[in-house]
Structures are given as C-alpha cells and as structure tokens.
C-alpha cells in the first residue's frame, strides 16, 4: 500500500512539479477557448479544468494523464447552452458524471478492445482538426494585427526552444503569451483580449447546486447531451490512456479511469464547471516535460488556479491571438502526422476506416459518431476478410453416383452466400455428401445456409448426408469454454 502510494505520487517529485507548471500553461488557453466555443464565461472552463485535474489525480486510473475541460466535450454543449443556459449545462455535467461512474462499474472500459488502431488514429486526427477549426472564429473578420500576432506566437513557440540554455528552461508557450501580451499592451493595439470574452474567476470555486427544476422534463432535456458527453469523454480518456501507456511503458486501470472521470465531472458540475475529459495534447506535453505520477496532474490543476487567481489583472490583457497560437500548437501536436505517411503503406480498408472516422467527426462535430462509424466499418471489413477464408471442393465417385463436397474454413453471415453458390444443384446425382469436418460454422446464418443447400439437393432427388456437423457447429455457442482448457482452442481449430 505505502509503496504504491510512493510510486504513484512521490517517485518523481521534481519532474512532476515542473511538468505541472508547463501543463497548467497549456491548459489555460484550452479552457478559455472552449468555454467561449460552448458559449459560457471563461471561468466555467477554468473552474472545470482545476476541479477535474485535481479530482482525477486522486481517483483516476492512469497516473500522469491530464484531464480538464476539453474541446471535444465543449463542442457537444453548444446547443444546450444556447437554448437552455448555463444551469442546465451544470446539471448535464452532473448527470454525465453519474453515467460515467455507472459505465465504470459495468466495466465498459474493456469495450475499447473493439476500437481498432485505425479508428484511434482517425479519432486523434479528427480531434486535432476540431481544435484547429475551433480557432477559426478568432481568425475571421479581424485586422491584420491578429494574423501577425498569431504567426509571431507560433514562431516563438517553435523557435524559442532553439535558443541555447534559456530556450530549454522556459516553456515556450509561456514566452509566447507573455511577449504577445506585452506587445499588445505597449502599442495599445485594438484587438480582442481574454477580458472581452466574459467573466474570469475571481474567487476560489464555491459549491453550488444547479438551479434547475428537478423533474422529468429537465431530465429529458439534459439526458441526450449527457449521453453524448459520457461517450465522448470516456472515448477520449481511454484513447489518451492508451497513448500514455505506450509512452511510459506502464499500464492503466481503465474501469477505474471511467469511474474517476465520472467523479471528476460530478465535482466539476458542483463547483460551477463544465464537463471535461482526458486531453491528448496536454498529456503528451506532461510526459514530455517529465511528468509521470499523479502528482503531476494534481500540480497542473493547482498551478492553473493559482495562476488564474494571482494573475487575473494580467490574464484579461492576453490577446486572443496568443491563445490561438497555443491552441494551434496543441492541434498540430495532437495530429498523428505519421498516419499521413502510412496511408501509402497501409491496406485500403484500414485507410478508409481512418478517413471515414475523421470525415464523420468533422461533419457532425461529435467524436462519438465518428468512432461508431469507424468501428462498424472496421467490423464489416473484418467480416468480409474472414469470409474469404472459405473453400468448397468437390469430388465425384462413379461407382455409387456420389458427389462429395468438402468445406474448409469459416462459414458465417458474410460467407454463407458464397457457401451456397459453391454447390451445383443442377447436377443430377443419387447421393450427395457434404463433409463439414474441416469447416467452422459461426452463426445461425451458416446453419440456415446449410439447411437451404440440403433442402435444394433433396428437391433434386438426391440423398444428402452431412458429415462432421457437430464439430463444425461447436463454434456457434456464445461462450467457448477455452479459458480453463488450454488445448480447447487447438481442438476447436484443428478438426
């Protein structure tokens, strides 16, 4: 117990605290930017980021992962906020938390195994595109100053680290924000600043119960949004967890993470924050900055609030262009550029799954729909591929006027038509033997196809004998008892 607390909290104190500062800097722009997208005051996003990061540090299942108010979630709230207002958003956030906790107890985290690699890549790319697109309103109908400042900001972010010594110890996004704020204040340039976007936090968050009527009508309003938020929040969290797992060569407890996300969202909703989830970009920044344990997440949340409260007069002066530059960086860093290169090498079906996931997300602004489309498509491609692993050969024996069909491979819904087509019903023979002892029947469609074939042969006047049906259909049952008998898989596949 004690040693695990030491491991998940205090095994890397220096790296975690430093990373916490860097990550807090990357959290502020996203919290502000997406509060604006969702149509609420920046303080809603900032309180949410603080609360979620702090709570998830204790209850999450993936040490070192950063969760806060995110773009993917904010995009789902837009209509709810516009039509019903902030109080309903807070209620929806609470309900999201409850649903996520339920998902955690139902162990839905393990459903992630159905999400294939290309869907994950598509999700990540779509997310990056969404983050980028969310910056566009700040870049349209504005003076050239904004473009110049955004470009300068990006220049600082990527070039500043090249300066020897200083470049390695000061986070470049911080320099970007500081320099651009300084320039805007010094020259008194008339561009939009954070202060123009709405109220910033001025106190520590306070506990408040959402001011909505507790009735069925309210529930019906918030439920659809909460379900969407639940699914997207968990999906992004699970995928981020996978990425952090890969980077740090450790494992995470997915179902605990689901419950943790739920608890964090309930906390956020009660403190006047919006729903959030894990963040891919910021988690990568955390790992890159040397953060590994829960302490890094906790310190990111605390530094965020401290910065926001202490620096509030300065914060309102930050030009939106500086935040846009930081968010463009997050978007570039989130996008999987390797996947573009891989398009040439990967099979077409994989590429289609990835691209469809991206297109559906960008079209609907809902990551859940994209993932659903991707998973379905991937499953169909898989069924199609496996369906090709079936071969029917036949032999004719003169003496008994017998045609013997030998079926090898996988028979199920996708290959059943091909299975029927393989029989020559026009051939007039006395006896037909269908040897299934090397085939696998996976579903009822396969059995129906066999029935159909047998009936057809009988109508043509042949006597039909089916061999090996019992072995072939052993695979239809829903649960194979292979876990307790190591040789069961061998036996199942060998006959």
């Amino acid at each position, binding site marked *: 117990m004690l*040693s695990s607390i030491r*491991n998940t909290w205090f*095994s*890397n104190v*220096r*790296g975690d605290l*430093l*990373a916490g500062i*860097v*990550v807090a*800097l*990357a959290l502020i722009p996203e919290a502000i930017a997406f509060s604006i997208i969702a149509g609420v005051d920046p303080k809603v996003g900032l309180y949410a980021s603080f609360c979620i990061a702090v709570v998830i540090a204790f209850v999450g299942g993936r040490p070192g992962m950063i969760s806060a108010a995110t773009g993917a979630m904010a995009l789902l709230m837009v209509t709810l906020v516009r039509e019903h207002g902030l109080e309903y958003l807070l209620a929806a956030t609470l309900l999201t938390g409850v649903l996520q906790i339920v998902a955690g107890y139902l162990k839905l985290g393990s459903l992630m195994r159905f999400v294939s690699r290309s869907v994950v890549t598509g999700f990540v790319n779509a997310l990056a595109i969404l983050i980028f697109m969310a910056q566009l309103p700040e870049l349209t109908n504005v003076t050239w100053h904004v473009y110049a400042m955004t470009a300068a900001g990006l220049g600082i*972010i*990527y070039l*500043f*680290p090249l300066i020897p010594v200083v*470049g*390695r*110890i*000061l*986070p*470049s*996004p*911080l320099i970007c924000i500081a320099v651009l704020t300084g320039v805007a204040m010094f020259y008194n340039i008339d561009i939009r600043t954070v202060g123009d976007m709405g109220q910033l936090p001025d106190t520590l968050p306070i506990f408040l119960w959402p001011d909505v009527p507790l009735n069925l009508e309210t529930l019906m309003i918030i439920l659809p949004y909460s379900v969407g938020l639940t699914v997207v929040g968990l999906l992004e969290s699970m995928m981020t967890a996978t*990425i952090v797992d*890969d*980077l*740090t*060569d450790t494992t995470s407890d997915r179902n605990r993470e689901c419950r943790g996300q739920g608890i964090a969202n309930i906390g956020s909703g009660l403190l006047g924050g919006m729903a959030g989830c894990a963040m891919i*970009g910021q988690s*990568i*920044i955390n*790992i*890159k*900055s*040397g*953060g*590994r344990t829960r302490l890094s997440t906790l310190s990111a949340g605390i530094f965020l609030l401290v910065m926001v409260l202490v620096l509030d007069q300065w914060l309102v002066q930050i030009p939106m262009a500086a935040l846009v530059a930081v968010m463009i*960086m*997050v978007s*570039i*860093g*989130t996008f*999987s*550029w*390797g996947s573009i290169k891989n398009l040439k090498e990967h099979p077409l079906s994989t590429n289609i799954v990835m691209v469809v996931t991206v297109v559906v997300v960008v079209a609907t602004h809902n990551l859940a729909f994209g993932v659903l489309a991707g998973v379905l498509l991937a499953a169909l491609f898989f069924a199609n591929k496996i369906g090709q692993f079936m071969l029917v050969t036949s032999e004719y024996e003169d003496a008994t006027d017998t045609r013997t069909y030998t079926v090898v491979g996988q028979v199920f819904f996708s290959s059943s038509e091909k299975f029927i087509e393989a029989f020559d019903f026009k051939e007039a023979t006395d006896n037909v033997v269908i040897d299934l002892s090397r085939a696998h029947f996976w579903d009822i469609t396969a059995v129906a196809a066999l029935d159909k074939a047998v009936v057809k042969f009988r109508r043509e006047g042949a006597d039909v004998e089916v061999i090996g049906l019992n072995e072939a259909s052993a695979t239809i049952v829903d649960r194979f008892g292979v876990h307790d008998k190591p040789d069961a898989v061998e036996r199942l596949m060998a006959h």
Partner: protein
Amino acid sequence: MTTENHDDGAQMPHHVVACIDGSEAALAVCDYSAWASQRMAAPLMLLHVLDEEKYPARTDMTGNIGLGSREQLQEELVSLDQERSKLALKHGHVLLDEAEKRVLASGVEKAAKRQRHDELASSLVELESESQLFVMGLHGESSAAAGRHVGSQLETVIRSVHRPVLMVPDDYVEPRSAMLAFDGSATAFRSVELLSATPVFQGMPLHLVLIGADNPEHQEQLKRAERLLSTQGSEIHTAIRDGDVEQTLHAYQQENDIDILIMGAYGHSRIRRFLVGSTTTKMLETARKPLVILR
C-alpha cells in the same frame, strides 16, 4: 519446504530459488541455497530481478508539441529505456554467471539462471508454482547503502509469497542445528508438520522452543509436536521459556549455539495477519544467523 505437489505445478520441478542481487549477501545466498538444494535434492534456480525502480524522468521544459511530437517522444523514451535496461541486463548476466560459478564449485550439478523485469515480490509470486523455497539476503543492495539493517524488500516478499523463505546473513556457516519457535497455535502445528516432511534438517539436532508460561497445557503441546517430529530421526530438544519473545529466542539460540531459526510469519491479532507479525519484523531486524519464515 514441503514436497507436496500443487495442482498446477505437478510436472514442474520444485526449485530452490536463490535471489541474487549485487549486495554482499549474494555470496552467502549462493552458498545457503546450494546447501539447501543439496539437502532437499531439489533443483536450484538463480534469480536476478531487474527491479524497475522507475528511472527518473528527463525534464524538458520547452512545453511545445509539433509535427510528429508523439512519435518522436515515444522513440526518445523507448531508446532511453532500452539503453538503461540493456545495461541492467548485462549487469544481471555477470551477477548470475558469478553466482553459477560459486554454486557449481560447492557441488551443485546444475543451476537454472533466470532474469525477470518486475518487482521482487511479484516475481517470486509468479515463480511460486515451480519452487519450494526462496533464499534471499537479510541485507539487500539498497539497504546496505542506506545504512538500514533489513533489506527493503524482505517484508513485502514475506507478506506476498506462500512458500518458505530462508533469509541469510552476509557470511555462510554450514548449518549444524536448528530451532523452531513454537507457540502451540494451529499455525505453529502446521509449521511442525512442514518440518517433519522436509529432509533439510534431517539428522541435525532440532530444538523446539515455546515462549510462554510453563504450564501443563504448553507441555502437552510441546509433547505433541515432539511426537510429530520424531519420525525425522533427529535428536529433539524441547524447552519452555518465559519472557520477551525476541530476546528470549535470541538468548536461547546463543546458549545452545543454534545455526538456523525457524518461525511462522504471522502475528496473533487479526489485523496483524495482513501485515507481518511484529515479532517477526523485530526478529528480522536483529537476526545475525539464518532465519526461515514459514508461510
């Protein structure tokens, strides 16, 4: 130290597992495990665990991510880990080779060598099905440096494994006598049964020491234990002593010049069952001679 077959490991040889590390005790661990494996006629396995004390993460404060940052970061972290693990692995091979030479010299025919990436305790739990005794040093690699007396991992190991653990001091002396700390409880009788089934202590004087009041009930229990052990063919002494458990046991051990002390790991209260009994912990801290903890 039973040779009973466990359902899952019936075909696997039951090894004496020597936990080797870079500490001074490693040599003694080799010698004692060689001795035990010969006495038990059990195969010997030398185990080195690359305990992944999480490497300190490198701090990069630039805080930016750009084209292919994730892939690049992944590659960086992987090659860093690879370098460190390769070195650790090499170091482990050297340690194991040294250990092998030593046990072969002391008459063991063959020793299996294994390395695992894990924590020591979980590695041992993993190996439980194919082992019957774990041998490890009282003072580990890190405890010597930190000036602590007991190896940092001992307690965790004792708490998690379900096989006897032989803990040895830094110097090897061939054991010629043994004593069992006995308290008349059900677990103590289980220990007695285990002892009667193992050939390790055959032929050497065996002392049964009960710490507690000298009353008829205790005497009766001692008699029963003595009968159980008499099949071993060793010379058995029994004694009842009153006083502080740890001090009395040590005093008795010194008086009678006993080489190995055997005791159960459990304390008596319910809560302590989760932890190692406090007496056991104290014994570990003050032990100068080999100690067998039975689970």
